[in-house]
């Protein structure tokens, strides 16, 4: 935890010691991505906070590609494209393997009026043409995914096929290897540019409405504001809808009992294959998979945890839950009409509470814009982090496979202990040797280095990063910082409080993620594989809930997470399921033990051990 002595400062990044056994960790990351004496003055005068929401764990060297992508893409949209008046982008540094970020303000306030004019022109254009641009975006995103899928990772044959000669191709598998890798990497950068094409403006519009509501209706809950704006037909819920469909199919085909025998995905498939009806069900399963099972059980930012399509544990457990509900005669359909009516009622009644025509008009204007932008805010995640990244990580594994075959790696996932530039070098090493007929250095060079890196990485994982570095600013204007990370007076003050790691705590406080209260035995899980253990009526305590975990919510009473904020990607889904949730408790998985009786108050944001 932070070396706090009651001051308003977090430790300087230059005073944080390297954890034992992590010496040389800097070699895992690019030179520009770590703190250094070269930029000490700049770096020491900033406030950095650990991005525990997206990157709660140390970064795998290869996986920094997601962070590095959003470093550029988020920043440029603020700084170079839309000219957000008071804010530049968000800077990045890695310290002891953990990602720290810092919002950069416009240094000279005199520049702001000029920026306002540009913003009005540029952002104004996007807001006015939002729907058509968004339709165009969906087409662009799908095209990018298809481009990535079409990247073929070549093998390096003993001899090039005869067509190389008969077609006068002139180019070879070595060239194809370079192209394939570069295309895949370019494609990742492209997808992240698209990710932020709308997101900054979307958040800005939402935050504006949010601020108005907080002022007009002091104390109104974050959930209520989200409800006013949320879309009804949200793509993020579609994977879950597919699971419901499959559960219903299983019941209709008379093969639902398979899920009573096992939720081991392999066994489910084996048992199903044994019968004709089961075979039909498997066909239905295949129909749902692309793209709806391209759904990460994590944030999607990392190559782990895997997606549904790679590991069917989560969907299988979820289908069992739905089968149980159907057999109990309960409805599993989303009450779309009721959700729509409730949204309209809320908007009508809040507007009626405003006392001047100007306020009513402002409410309508801002709600209208927030609703226009929100489908993007809600849906982009499926396209980018889930669908695209599932394809991406698996494409990278294909390169890993090639390097395993040629003795560079012991196993495919060793790939992710190399930075993408290093992979490019390794591939060049490989094609150099292939082309020349000589010997690659890689098989002698990489295995020992990877082993060392794995050691360092394991030690970095044990380290607890301080939540902040340097001195907090007085005002944050960068929309993401506020909306996504919930950086407020309270959160910073909480971080500054000297606290332990929460072990053995009886009461934890977090964000009120989803309303309602519940009491039940805890089920503490730290990995996706353990989701299958969850029993009906338990309270799920986990590091982070991601949308793909949500279907399991049908079995549980409440959710407690270590990490999460007001608009964390999962929060939207938590509320949708009507399961009480307290998110961002910091230490839930460390404080509570499986079987302990907990009381969760999703209204107050507290979790208490019931003695």
């Amino acid at each position, binding site marked *: 935890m932070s070396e706090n002595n009651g001051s*308003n400062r977090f430790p300087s990044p230059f005073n944080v010691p390297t954890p034992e056994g992590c010496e040389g960790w800097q070699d895992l990351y690019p030179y520009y991505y770590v703190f250094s004496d070269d930029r000490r003055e700049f770096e020491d005068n900033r406030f950095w906070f650990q991005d525990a929401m997206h990157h709660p764990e140390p970064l795998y060297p290869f996986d920094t590609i997601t962070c590095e992508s959003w470093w550029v893409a988020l920043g440029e949209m603020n700084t170079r494209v839309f000219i*957000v*008046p*008071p*804010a530049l982008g968000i800077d990045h540094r890695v310290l002891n393997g953990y990602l720290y970020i810092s919002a950069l303000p416009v240094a000279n306030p005199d520049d*702001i009026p000029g920026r*306002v004019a540009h*913003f*009005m022109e540029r*952002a*104004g254009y996007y*807001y006015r043409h939002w729907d058509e641009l968004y339709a165009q975006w969906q087409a662009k995103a799908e095209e990018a995914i298809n481009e990535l899928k079409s990247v073929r990772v070549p093998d390096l044959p003993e001899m090039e096929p005869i067509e190389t000669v008969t077609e006068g191709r002139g180019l070879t598998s070595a060239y194809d290897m370079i192209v394939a890798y570069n295309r895949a990497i370019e494609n990742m950068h492209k997808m992240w540019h698209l990710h932020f094409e709308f997101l900054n403006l979307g958040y*800005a*519009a939402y*935050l*504006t409405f949010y*601020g*108005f509501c907080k*002022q*007009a*209706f*002091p*104390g*109104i*809950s974050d959930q*209520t504001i989200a409800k006013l704006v949320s879309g009804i037909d949200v793509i993020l819920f579609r994977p879950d809808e597919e699971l419901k469909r499959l559960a219903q199919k299983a019941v209709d085909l008379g093969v639902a009992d398979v899920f009573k025998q096992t939720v081991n995905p392999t066994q489910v498939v084996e048992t199903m294959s044994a019968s004709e009806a089961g075979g039909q069900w498997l066909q239905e399963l295949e129909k749902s998979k692309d793209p709806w099972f391209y759904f990460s059980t994590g944030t999607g930012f990392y190559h782990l945890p895997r997606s549904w399509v790679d590991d069917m544990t989560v969907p299988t457990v979820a289908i069992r839950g739905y089968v149980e509900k159907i057999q109990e005669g309960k409805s599993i359909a989303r009450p779309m009409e009721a959700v729509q009516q409730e949204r309209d*009622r*809320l908007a009508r*009644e*809040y507007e009626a*509470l*405003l*006392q*001047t025509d*100007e*306020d009513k*008009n*402002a409410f309508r*204007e*801002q709600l*209208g*814009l927030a609703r226009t932008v929100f489908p993007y805010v809600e849906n982009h995640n499926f396209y980018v982090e889930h669908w695209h990244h599932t394809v991406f990580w698996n494409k990278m594994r294909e390169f890993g496979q090639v390097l395993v075959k040629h003795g560079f790696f012991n196993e495919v996932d060793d790939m992710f202990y190399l930075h993408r530039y290093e992979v490019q070098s390794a591939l060049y090493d490989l094609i150099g040797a292939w082309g020349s007929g000589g010997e690659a250095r890689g098989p002698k060079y990489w295995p020992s280095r990877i082993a060392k890196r794995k050691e360092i990485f394991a030690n970095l994982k044990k380290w607890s990063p301080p939540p902040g570095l340097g001195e*907090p*600013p*007085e*005002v*944050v*204007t960068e*929309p993401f910082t*506020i909306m996504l990370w919930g*950086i*407020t*007076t309270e959160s*910073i*003050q909480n971080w500054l409080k000297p606290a332990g790691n929460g072990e053995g705590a009886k009461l934890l406080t977090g964000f009120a993620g989803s*309303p309602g*209260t519940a009491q039940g035995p805890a089920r503490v899980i730290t990995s996706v594989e353990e989701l299958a253990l969850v029993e009906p009526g338990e309270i799920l305590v986990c590091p982070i809930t991601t949308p793909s975990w949500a279907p399991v919510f049908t079995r549980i009473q409440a959710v407690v997470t270590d990490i999460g904020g007001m608009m964390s990607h999962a929060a939207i889904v938590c509320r949708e399921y009507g399961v009480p949730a307290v998110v961002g408790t910091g230490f839930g998985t460390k404080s509570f033990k499986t079987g302990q009786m907990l009381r969760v108050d999703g*209204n*107050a944001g507290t979790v208490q051990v019931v003695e």
Partner: protein
Amino acid sequence: MNTSPYILWFTECDRSKQNSVGGKCANLGEMLQANVRVPPGFAVTTHAYRQFLNGRGIGDEIARMLDALDVDDIECAEETSRDIRQLMSATPIPPAIEDAICYAYEELCAECHVDDLPVAVRSSATAEDLPGASFAGQQETTLWVRSAPHVLIRTAICWSSLFTARAIAYRKEMGFPHDKVHMSVGVQKMANSRAAGVMFTLNPINGDRSKIAIDSSWGLGESVVSGVVTPDNYLVDKVTEGILQRTLSPKLIEYIPNHAEGKVEIADVPQERQTSSSLNDDEIINLTILAKCIEGYYHVPMDIEWGIDRDLEFPENVMLLQCRPETVWSSKPPTRVIQQSGTALDFVIANMLKGVRVK
């Protein structure tokens, strides 16, 4: 269901029955129709009153006495009033009416699971709500009435309160015929609150109309109204009915009714209840719905006294005891969020420039 022409339960009353049950009871009926729960009870109808006068033939005699009266002569008015009220109290209530009242009272006791249920007996005249005609002196109210014979005695006293000297003089002055005003009597369960307090249909701290603010303590509401305890406070979102804030305080004393002696006593709150919440979530939400119904009925922010009755079951026990329009915020100019109108983009820019203070 009641079939007696002499009794109407509050649940059967509404504005159209004003001639039968008087203004006060009609109003209680209206509240119930608007889903505003009030302590249960019934009206002895004006039909019973007229039967009493006509059946025993004293109506004509009273009319003669009033005709002979010179209102400017105060002493004479007092004398006539005394004579009329003596005549009325000397006249027995017809048995059919007595039976109907006793039967209704017993039924009320049964509904509340209390023998000799303490009730309030109040006059409810047909003309009392007319503009400019408050008919002072008719507001006869007796609290802590227990047992059927006492209810009968108090009913008769309410009837005769139509003929206090002041009421007589008032009607004369207003030119209102005496025989056009009739008296109904309301018999209503006395509050026996397990928890009670005050709530506003706005946040009294900042005037925010999207909230219901509830103050609550153990026992009868007097402890909250008089300020002798620091009550628990709950803040609820009026639109979503979600509980936003709970602030619990130690509640050291409570007011509890002493039925036998017909009075309210102060008692120490046992330690285990002092710091626990005086309301559970279901009660808070039910009070919120009650508050919304009351505000919906009056169309202005309201200041409401409420109680959770011991003798009834949830949710029938959550009830309005008294209410009045809120005056502090309602008399101020309307609060406004924005000073200038604009487009959504203007607001986005303004919001960005403001930022969020973090320390």
